[in-house]
């Protein structure tokens, strides 16, 4: 029983880490592209900024879904 709880904890931790890797990669690519776009066309900076924040929120949202799943897994299992 104890080993299963430990395995779930490890799984939840690894899952949260993988979600962070994916989300971080996505947001960094997005930010790099947005900065390049703004540097090339400073007059479009406002539009690019708005779209960047919205897209970053989408990526962040998906990442947080994964983190919430990991959190529920860890808390529900360790409590019992």
């Amino acid at each position, binding site marked *: 029983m104890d080993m299963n709880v430990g395995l779930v904890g490890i799984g939840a931790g690894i899952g949260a880490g993988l979600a962070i890797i994916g989300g971080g990669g996505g947001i960094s690519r997005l930010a790099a592209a947005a900065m390049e776009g703004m540097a090339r066309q400073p007059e479009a900076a406002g539009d690019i900024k708005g779209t960047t924040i919205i897209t970053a929120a989408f990526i962040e*949202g998906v990442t947080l879904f994964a983190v919430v799943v990991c959190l529920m897994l860890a808390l529900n299992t360790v409590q019992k």
Partner: protein
Amino acid sequence: MSLLSALLASLFALALQHAPAPQAAAPQVAAPQAQSAVQHIEEQVEGLEDEAEHLESQIAAHAPGHDGKPTSSQIFQGLFKHLEPHAVTALWFGGSKKMFGLVPAYAADTDGNALHEDEHGNPAVFHSRAELNAHYAADFGGGQGILIYNINTAQWLAAITLVIVVLLAARSARRQSGQAPRGTGYHILESIVLYVRDDMVYTVMGKHHGERFVPLFLTQFFFILFMNLFGLMYLGSIGGTATANLAVTGGMALTTLLFIHFSGMREHGFLHHWKNFVPAGLPWFVLPIIIPVELMGMIVKPAALTIRLFANMTAGHLVVLGFFGLIYLFGSYAIGVPVLGMSIAIYCLELFVCFVQAYIFTYLSIIFVGASVHPEH
């Protein structure tokens, strides 16, 4: 043969201590072997006693506060419980005493002293309306009670503050009409309102369609923002982050869902609005694929809004809680110094997240409602 099996079984029981007692072995023992059977049973009892001791020590290690040193995971879970909504008071109405008013949200005797306490020494609150009714119905001669949670009070606090702020700003705007506006608070509010109207609603929906929806989205933006900001303040037991609760964010997303369909039906008529679900000019054989996908999209939109806001507001609090948990984990005051710095840094990030999440929730709602009002864009 039975002697051998009994000995083997008792050896196993001694060695493993967790193995189930071999019940079948004892009755088979014949009279000359009675002594060994007694010995075997004694050994079994010893094994069970050891097991019981082992289990007791395990229970003692897991029970919070039993030996004064809870484990770090218990501390973190105890801290985590503070993120969950808890009842702060209850409203009772009806009964033979014609009672209408507030009663304690915990089981209390006639003097008002709490009957039960949780592990922190606080009065243990009711968890459901049924528990509340079962406790108070006899005292008031019937009637019904409603539990009021800290997220309810936090929402009302945000709503009242919002009304007061907007009324003050409106009065100031009326008094200063025709002059240059003055006052810091007024300027801040005006710039946010203008940003929501011009850069969010009008750019997505256009002035013609968007004008009707500006009050809705302004209310949505400021209500979420105020709930987020009140969640960062310590307000005793009545405070709490209302938006770190799935029910609250789900309610806000449900408003968006209703407006997506009601404004679409109002703009295009009932049938035409539901026909807009499917892009025009598609061949008939893709309809079985497109219709389920669009139906799923209809549900996923508000669900994503719900979980995004909930997860963002919960995540910041969890990280701060995790840092505070480090103090208990290391059991030293010195660790409090870096923890304080990290907590303040995360807190500043949370302050930023409060604004960003209110902006994103409103902006996505505007996009969804705008797509429903004029789907060709």
